[in-house]
């Protein structure tokens, strides 16, 4: 089943009836989800979906093209600020504003891709990191963007539909997420995607085979920035208030962690990685109210540590889980999935 016999089998959207079935189940589940759970979990789902868009976008760059970026919070900020300012200052409707802002992010991605043509590894890491820090500095300097005092997001209206609850916003985010993920998946399956993978595996060989490095490396940056910009625009409406301090280096590191923990070079991996890490990010604060575990941790801190700092346990757990996944499976969650699948394939023999 897994063997591809011809090209059309490879680019086909659904590889088998089973995938069609699961895809339909997923779509039905996603559409029914807001009615099955409390509003809070809808909010969590929105937050996760936004991270999924970023992770899938970053995966184009990191997983498929083999570049590194520690500056995606910068594109995220450009998307968020672009969308909000276009809507408030230029009165552009939401969807065009979102795409224009993401386009701006893509343009900056292209610019950042230029030095990347000559750099790799830690050199590229430091350049992208600098980009992320500079973007927030510049935004903070410009009063047009509300400076350091931040900006309020306007009401979110599409046509005559005013999305003011988490549930309504959920449908918008989900539609965009599904579209983006499918689009990225399709791009990867085309000539462009194969060029990216060729660059990752051996850039000089790729060039020799006729892949234009200048075009495709910058294109990878631009595409990745575009996805992140879209996510940023949506994020502004989750918070309804943005200021430069939100888009920190920590955020960039988190995005990178999502991609790597999920599994480099796999769309499903990025999705699960983003969901897992953002869920942990939001939920680990409740660790102390777990039955038994919480009281045990508290007595531990009373004896050896300090009660005032007990919440920091969430960092220890977070770091521990990340390390555990990476130690046992360099391909991240996706690698674990592949191995389980292989193991059960011949079961029970």
């Amino acid at each position, binding site marked *: 089943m897994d063997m591809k016999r011809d090209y059309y089998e490879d680019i086909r959207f659904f590889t088998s009836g089973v995938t069609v079935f699961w895809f339909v189940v997923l779509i039905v589940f996603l559409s029914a989800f807001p009615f099955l759970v409390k509003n809070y979990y809808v909010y969590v789902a929105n937050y996760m979906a936004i991270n999924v868009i970023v992770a899938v976008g970053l995966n184009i760059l990191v997983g498929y093209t083999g570049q590194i970026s520690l500056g995606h919070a910068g594109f995220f900020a450009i998307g968020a600020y672009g969308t909000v300012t276009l809507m408030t200052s230029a009165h552009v409707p939401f969807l065009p504003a979102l795409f224009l802002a993401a386009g701006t992010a893509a343009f900056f991605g292209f610019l950042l891709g230029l030095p990347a043509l000559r750099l790799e590894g830690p050199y590229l890491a430091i350049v992208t990191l600098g980009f992320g820090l500079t973007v927030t500095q510049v935004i903070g300097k410009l009063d047009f963007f509300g400076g350091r005092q931040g900006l309020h997001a306007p009401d979110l209206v599409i046509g005559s539909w005013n999305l003011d609850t988490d549930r309504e916003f959920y449908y918008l985010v989900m539609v965009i997420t599904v579209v983006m993920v499918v689009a990225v998946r399709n791009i990867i399956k085309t000539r462009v995607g194969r060029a990216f993978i060729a660059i990752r595996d051996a850039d000089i060989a790729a060039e020799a085979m006729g892949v234009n490095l200048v075009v495709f490396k910058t294109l990878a940056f631009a595409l990745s920035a575009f996805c992140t910009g879209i996510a940023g625009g949506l*994020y502004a409406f989750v918070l309804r208030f943005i200021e430069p301090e939100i888009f920190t280096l920590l955020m960039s590191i988190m995005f990178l962690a999502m991609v790597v923990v999920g599994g480099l070079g796999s769309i499903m991996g990025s999705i699960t990685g983003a969901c897992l890490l953002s869920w942990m990010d939001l939920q680990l604060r409740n660790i102390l109210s777990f039955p038994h575990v919480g009281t045990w941790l508290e007595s531990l801190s009373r004896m050896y540590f300090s009660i005032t700092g007990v919440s920091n346990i969430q960092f220890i757990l977070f770091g521990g889980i990340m390390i555990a996944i990476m130690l046992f499976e360099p391909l991240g969650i996706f690698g674990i999935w592949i191995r389980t699948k292989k193991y059960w394939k011949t079961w029970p023999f």
Partner: protein
Amino acid sequence: MRSSGFKLAAAVSALVLGLAFGVWAEEGVTDTEIHIGQWGPQTGPAAAWGSVARGTDAYFKMINAEGGIHGRKLIHHMFDDAYNPAKTLAGVKELQEGTGMFAWVSGVGTAPGLAVKDYLMERKIPWVGPSAGSLHWITPPEKYLFAVYPLYYIEAKALVRYGVEKMGFKKVAIIYQNDDYGKNGVKGAKEELAEHNMKLVAEVPVNLTDSDLKPHVMKLKNSGADMVLLWTSPKHAVITVGTSKAMQFSPQFMSTSTCSDFPLMMHISKGLWEGVIAATFAELPDSPHPLMQKYKKDAFEKFAAKDERWGLFFYAGIVFAEPLVEGIKRCGKDLTRERLVKELEGLKDFQGISGKIGYKPFDPNDPSCRQGQNHSPDG
């Protein structure tokens, strides 16, 4: 299939909501309990502010130990948001839609606060004493949002007036944190100086992550300032004062309430904080004020963790909660949100351990109707 699932879910949720409203007269209030929520960064770069929430917690426990308010105990729900607005919003939604909070108290930070402000105000949930002196809280004023913290902007004005009028300084400079907090200080200082036909001789921004402040201090020194306002975090304030000493530059330093924890500042500056004038929004830690002594004895010593310090941020948690508790007390047995808002509006010259606090009936055009402390006592 989808639409029937939809209807079923809608029916179930309507049923649940109906039940919920049937049981409680007001969300978060029962015959024996009042649920009050609060967020505060216990982790992350702003974790030093975490003691605010722990202070409120000890204060509520003290009230409960004394029998609660009209037979009801205060149940305090606090969570860690790591100063990340997305997490603040998550925690607030979870608590509000899960347990159901009657009101929210304090809550550290401008960005986290602004992320949840609309959510709370749309649902008409009272929120008392955000712990940041930002103009955002009262412009425009909101019916259910009561600010306690004196505005950084007013603090700056008061300090400048004091320095210029009483101490006769001629050249005022400011070093400020490059965010909402710092900018408010610059704005206040500029306006007050304009009234005396003066200008800031230097405005030096500090980024939160900077650790080397020598260029900043050189700027201040070259401007020849004789009075310097420190609108920064305690860390940067200490480094500025220290670096100035190393560069043999000794103006009169003045600082905000954020840096007014004198014992702490003296300790971490190795004694250099001596002689710095700071505004403050409450009594000092070693104050003989009877209420302070009581809080220290009954709340701090009995209910705070062993490694807690009786510092400014800790009892700031008490300062921000005092008006709320007073309002709930005045409501009597019949506790509703509308009633609480009315009682809070009726506060006049309420004296806790901060300056006098008073509010006015809601007027969308008058920001001062929701600003509790209008001037800092020592300014």
